[in-house]
């Protein structure tokens, strides 16, 4: 069975760690961590992701802004799960 590739975006390192730890317990999921929306954008250019964990309140581009700027092809393959770490 194909694994689902997840991308987690959050500026708080511990929040990412908690998520990574939780996702690590689910064998069907893999996780890549991004510390900012910029990083996430770069990663999306070169990788295929199925699930996006997105923090909304981040320095620089906010999560919502990041969403609106996503390219169309990515939308088709993306199931969105949004978590507000506040």
């Amino acid at each position: 069975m194909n694994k689902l590739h997840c991308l987690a975006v959050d500026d708080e390192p511990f929040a990412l760690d908690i998520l990574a730890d939780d996702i690590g317990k689910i064998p069907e999921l893999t996780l890549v961590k991004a510390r900012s929306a910029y990083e996430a954008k770069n990663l999306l250019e070169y990788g295929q992701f199925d699930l996006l964990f997105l923090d909304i309140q981040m320095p620089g581009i906010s999560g919502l802004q990041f969403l609106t700027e996503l390219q169309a092809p990515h939308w088709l393959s993306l199931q969105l799960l949004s978590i507000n770490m506040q």
Partner: protein
Amino acid sequence: MPLDRALHLHVLLNFKIWIHLTGWAAFIVSPFLFPLPFLKPLPAYAFQYLVYSRIGIDLLLMGIFYFNLFRLTPRLISHNNTLSFILILFGFLMLIIVIDSFSFIFLKKHLQGFFLEVSKIDPIRKDLASSRFLSPPQLITNIIVFALIILVSSLLAVLDDRLRQKAYSQDIIYEKVKSELAILKLQISPHFLFNTLNNIRWLTRTKSDQAEKSIIELSDILRYMLYQAVHEQVYLREEINYLTKYINLQKLRISPHVKIDFFHEALPGHIKIEPLLLLPFVENAFKFGIHSETHSAITIAIQLTDKELFFFCINPCFDLPSHEFPNGSGLGLQNVKRRLDLYYPMKHSLLIESTLSQFIVNLRITLANE
């Protein structure tokens, strides 16, 4: 406080009483300071009678003065009963005129002969000889004096009323500002609170020793905000303790390539300051001065010379959250500016330098010694 009030009232009352007494003394004595020529040759008993009757009328006028000051005009102000006000005044005026005329006529009856003589010498004083009830000059004098009495007492009553209203609205403003300040003081950043809790959560999961320390620090910070900050002033040492704990908790989430320096020398234990004035700047520094990849350094310094406090904070300026602005127009900095103006008016200077790459805060406060 009650003793102070009592003393002030005492002094104030005395002062006012003296003014009234002086005024009345002048009022009563003045007719006798200008000797009317025709009074000179009067027999002693007549002169005495004139003096007594004049003083009698004056006392009556005094009564009317205070009645108007404490009862009539205040009623007019609050109830707007113009008609009854005018009627009562008219009634008093008639009373004065009648009493004065009667007393003068009484005197004239006894001194008929004398007044006839005077009118022969001085035709202008002809009215003294006539047996008319109301003599025009006397009437006019009475009306003028009465009008003055009423005017002054009414003006005093209006002034009193204005002052009382002003004091009342000042009180309201004061209470409002006080409660505003109380609310401003208790603002803790929810973002920081929940982030810290989340960080502690991770520390507990990894069974880190740091977890317990962080929980204690967080609870200390909350306790400080809730209890100490409600008091008027706190010791500077306590405020610095609080900032240190805050910075420690922030350090949890910071990458190793961020350098944090907090300089504060040993401070005398008796210096006090308004609480939570410095935190917004420190918060800001951590909000905008951290970047996950780039190296950055935050420097905070507190120095005390004599009675002057110097607070210095410099941090790099990275991309800002899209919903906030630099240069202090955020809510936290607005609060601090307002509180600085309220607690240390003219006794502080706040310089914020915001360039593209750096954010510098220079704050100086002249602290009053306790």
